[in-house]
């Protein structure tokens, strides 16, 4: 009851005193940083669809985990682990398909589209079967789809923290290879850069980001957070490093305030965050319309 009263007139500081909100804001900011730091690369490599595919696959992974581990719940570590594993396997398959390019029998977007819709369908089927079998609503499906601040646990925060460290380390260590790969993967390969390694590394990072972030913003909207900050940053910056940094700042801030609004308005974090990012995009477009296009600055 005390909590309800404090939320009746929720100031920012009031809200901050709630552990759930603290956890949500920290998890959200980290999640925003992870997604956004990869987003310029996702946009440049035209992998938006891949992010979407992995998100759908994550749903399949959750379904499998929930169904086969009896009595399991969304926030159980076993569910988390199986989902991540499932997505890493499918991520490896995407890596193969996207490298094969034109020489494959099936176009890569068709292959990804089929594989991940099937994974999602399988997930939905298994979750419903589990509900019939265990005669309970395991948890609302919309939490899986759009995220739910109440379902975040400390494990999510730790995972997101570790993921942030991994992403920043990989970007720092392989920056020049990733830069060349984003410029032209084929050219990087024939120029003696191990583009295959970078390709799989990048896809695996994407998988981890999508799977772990999808618990915050939900699987439907996670791919948008891999695109919008990158699009904004690429409109503003003329070099890759500033673009990644700009996207990361936009990502963490939009997630931070998105999570806060989600708590304030009692809406799902996914919709709050993505709409906030979209408003940013519109603002930047407007700004550029008024001030003219970007100029090279060093």
């Amino acid at each position: 009851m005390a909590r309800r009263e404090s939320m009746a007139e929720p100031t920012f500081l009031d809200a901050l005193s709630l552990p759930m909100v603290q956890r949500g804001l920290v998890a959200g900011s980290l999640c925003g940083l992870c997604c956004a730091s990869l987003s310029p690369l996702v946009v440049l490599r035209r992998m938006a669809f891949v992010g979407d595919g992995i998100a759908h696959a994550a749903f399949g992974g959750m379904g499998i985990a929930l169904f086969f581990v009896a009595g399991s719940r969304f926030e159980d570590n076993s569910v988390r682990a199986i989902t991540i594993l499932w997505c890493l396997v499918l991520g490896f398959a995407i890596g193969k398909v996207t490298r094969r390019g034109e020489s494959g029998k099936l176009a890569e977007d068709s292959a990804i589209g089929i594989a991940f819709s099937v994974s999602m369908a399988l997930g939905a089927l298994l979750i419903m079967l589990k509900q019939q079998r265990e005669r309970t609503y395991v948890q609302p499906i919309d939490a899986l789809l759009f995220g739910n601040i109440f379902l975040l646990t400390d494990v999510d925060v730790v995972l997101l923290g570790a993921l942030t460290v991994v992403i920043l380390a990989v970007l720092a260590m392989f920056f020049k290879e990733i830069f060349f790969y984003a410029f032209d993967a084929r050219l990087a390969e024939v120029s003696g850069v191990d583009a295959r390694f970078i390709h799989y590394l990048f896809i695996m990072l994407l998988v981890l980001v999508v799977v772990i972030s999808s618990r915050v913003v939900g699987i439907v909207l996670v791919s948008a957070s891999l695109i919008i900050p990158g699009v904004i940053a690429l409109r503003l910056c003329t070099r890759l490093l500033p673009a990644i940094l700009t996207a990361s700042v936009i990502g963490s801030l939009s997630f931070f305030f998105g999570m806060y609004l989600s708590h304030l308005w009692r809406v799902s974090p996914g919709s709050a965050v993505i709409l906030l990012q979209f408003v940013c995009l519109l603002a930047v477009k407007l700004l550029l319309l008024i001030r003219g296009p970007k100029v090279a600055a060093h």
Partner: protein
Amino acid sequence: MSDAPVAVSSPTAPVHAADAPSVIELKNVSFAYAPGTPVLQNVNFRVWEGEFLGLIGPNGGGKSTLLKLVLGLLSPQEGEVLVLGRKAETLGKDRALLGYVPQDTTVRRQFPATVLDVAVMGTYARLGLFRRPGEKERTAAREALKHVGLEGLETRQAANLSGGQQQRLSIARALVAEPRLLLLDEPTSGLDTGGQAQLFALLDDLRKHYKLTVVMVSHDVTALAHYADQLACLSRTLHWHDRSELISEAVLRKVYACELDAFFIQHREHLKEFHADNAPAGHAHGPHCEHDHGATGKHG
């Protein structure tokens, strides 16, 4: 022309000695994307150090496939592709020794890189993992940019250059890696006459300066006949047509009309001049020039 359509199932290089340094060597190479429809059949082919080879042929004749084999992107089903004496697929980071200029050198709109950034990419393979390009690499890149005539544009966004400039940027990127061989895939297709003349002049200059071997795939037969030391025509197989003469319209008509034959014409005088210019470099050109003469009688 009467000797053109001889049996060409396994033509061997008639001109040079086996021990002369060859930059590219294809031995009995066959390749098919799908079984039963070979793109390349029993191709034997050598490019010698310091040469400028023009590769022509009809669409679907296997030119791009040959390039991919040399670049190590494809492996032949039969035979061997040797680049600098090593199997093309196993070159790894030494692929930097092959400067490749793709057909499409357009930098994607909004790609966040300056002209200098793109040129420096040429040094990445040589640097290896975990090492960042420093002042040394940037200086080399600036020099290459100067060489291709892009001096003063280093801080411009690469995507904002004109088409011809982007192509020269791609050449600069390839040059920064200090390649032994420059492979150009239809570089003249997007250029007007002036741009083409500029490109050939630039290549001529670069060959002398960097002692490069150049292989150019192109439809521009007239220009190639003028500038290249040798001309090879590829249409599934390669025929080595060993004659010191300019390519004639009759030959071309035959090549593009006929499916299985290919022609090979040498401009030995060009090559000799080139080697004479570069004599002090001493890459054992002597023996292979001698064999030029020795072998001429074989087909004549």
